[in-house]
């Protein structure tokens, strides 16, 4: 029966998990704090259960219809494309900071990046992704 303690002892002795003990304690503390606060407010707060209280609050007006209305795909398309190109522009910031150190090689790399970028842009325009009217 000596294998049960072995089974429980997950980490072998050479393990460095002790180094992470403070982190573990912090994690437990954080989780415990949140749990405590939620439980405490639910326990300590006043409770008055009426049907009005369980209604959606819509600034006094009764709600009607479905919130999920179909929207034109173009909104999403434009939004996604915007995010795509916007995120790519972010790459210019690190380049701007290291502009001098990277020299010509960096310049050509960024030029290539922009070129691909531009090709993508041309492609979506040619494909008509940005045409608002059909």
């Amino acid at each position, binding site marked *: 029966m000596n294998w049960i303690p072995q089974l429980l002892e997950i*980490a072998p002795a050479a393990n*460095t998990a002790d180094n992470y003990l403070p982190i573990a304690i912090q994690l437990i503390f954080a989780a415990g704090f949140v749990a405590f606060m939620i439980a405490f407010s639910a326990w300590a707060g006043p409770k008055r259960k009426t049907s009005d209280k369980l209604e959606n609050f819509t600034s006094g007006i009764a709600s009607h219809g479905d919130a999920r209305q179909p929207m034109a795909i173009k909104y999403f398309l434009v939004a996604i494309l915007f995010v795509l190109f916007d995120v790519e522009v972010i790459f210019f910031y690190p380049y701007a900071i290291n502009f001098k150190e990277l020299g010509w090689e960096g310049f050509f790399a960024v030029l290539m990046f922009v070129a691909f970028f531009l090709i993508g842009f041309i492609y979506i325009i*040619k494909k008509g992704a940005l045409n608002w009217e059909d």
Partner: protein
Amino acid sequence: MNAIIFSALSGVAMMFTGIFTTNKSAIRNVAVIALLGLIIVNLLHSYGIFVVRVNTHSMLQFETFGLFFNTLVFAATLLFVLLSGKDVTNAGTYGAEYFALIFFVLCGVSILTCYNSLLMLFIGIEILSIPLYILTGADKRNLKSNEASLKYFLMGSFSTGILLMGITLVYGITGTFSIEAMRPAVSVGAPNYGILEPVGLLFIFIALLFKVSAAPFHFWTPDVYDGAPTVFTSFMATIVKAAGFVSFIRLFDARAIEMGISWKIILPVIIIATLLIGNITAVFQQSVKRMMAYSSIAQAGFMLFAVYVNNDMSKEGILLYTAAYSIATIGIFAILTRMKDITFDGFNGLAKKHPVLAATNAVFLLSLAGIPLTAGFFAKYYMLAAVVKENGAGALWLVIVAVLFAAVSVYYYFRVIQAMYFKEGEPEITEVSGGFKTALVMLAVLIVLIGTFPSALLNWFYF
């Protein structure tokens, strides 16, 4: 390097081909020319001729094995396009874009065959995977295709998450992404990184096991392969899977020792589980396409041997396996795309009506089953011989189990042959051209040739 650049540029070129022309045969021709170019520039690389000289800061490292594998994969893609090019352009509305995506996949493959940094591994896998999610959903009007695409994407993202987690752990503890730089750490007297490094590596391996659809990380495979348009299933099951194996082998080559002895228990268990699930589940399938999905899991079980043992023979074996498996699977799927009814019963009586299709299909199936005189036999033989060579009689039980499962696989492969030759029926089939038949016959001849002279292919690898 040539291959990476040229495949990416070819992808872009294909995108614009789609804008300038809608002529399907022109699109196919451009793709074929680009593939030929890709093969040529890749061969040029082997002779030290570069299109552009790029300092990769040793994030990539080019070796004969990887380059030859590139050639093999590109050649397989060329065969695929020659045989099924029409189906690619007909799979959905954007023929040229599908080719563009295929080229991006090839770009990912060429990164995966030479990466030397975990970052490049990640980028390669992503470049490989994202186009596949789209290709899976290419048939937009088909619910199954959509479902497969979504499933693939969800589970793929999950595995990518695991991969990134693993890379992070490894980087955090070792301070480097380079798999090459981590190598010295393995030797005697190296710093002990504790438990986090192997756990990180473990995560990376699990993500890769997912990519090659090894059990129990295979669940996406049947659903995705079944749902995707058949022509892209063919591409995914062959070329992409093989690339997954090569990336696996590259990493394992460098890091196996750090895995500890547990790895020697885990991997055989995974291999056997993969063989078991792949082979046994395939037995009960009614659809040939789904059977092929399970068969590809089963074949992955065999290919995993190249990960389990890492010697010259296993490397030769994985090359041979890739060639044999890809050719046969491409052929079978090409025939499958022509069938109206893709259940086993749909094949009833094919031999009477279309003897060429039936005969070539039989050759492909025999090769997958590993019957001698076909390429599949030597592929399996090299794998098992590599295991015996490395581990001696101790690994014999593994070999015996593998052979038993290969015997099970004969059952479901022969069900198709039985349906084609020994059952009466009126198989419905779309028009097949003479060129298609010629290409099929050439593939079958190739299989028999490799099966008769396996050393011919391997000699090419060494010279």
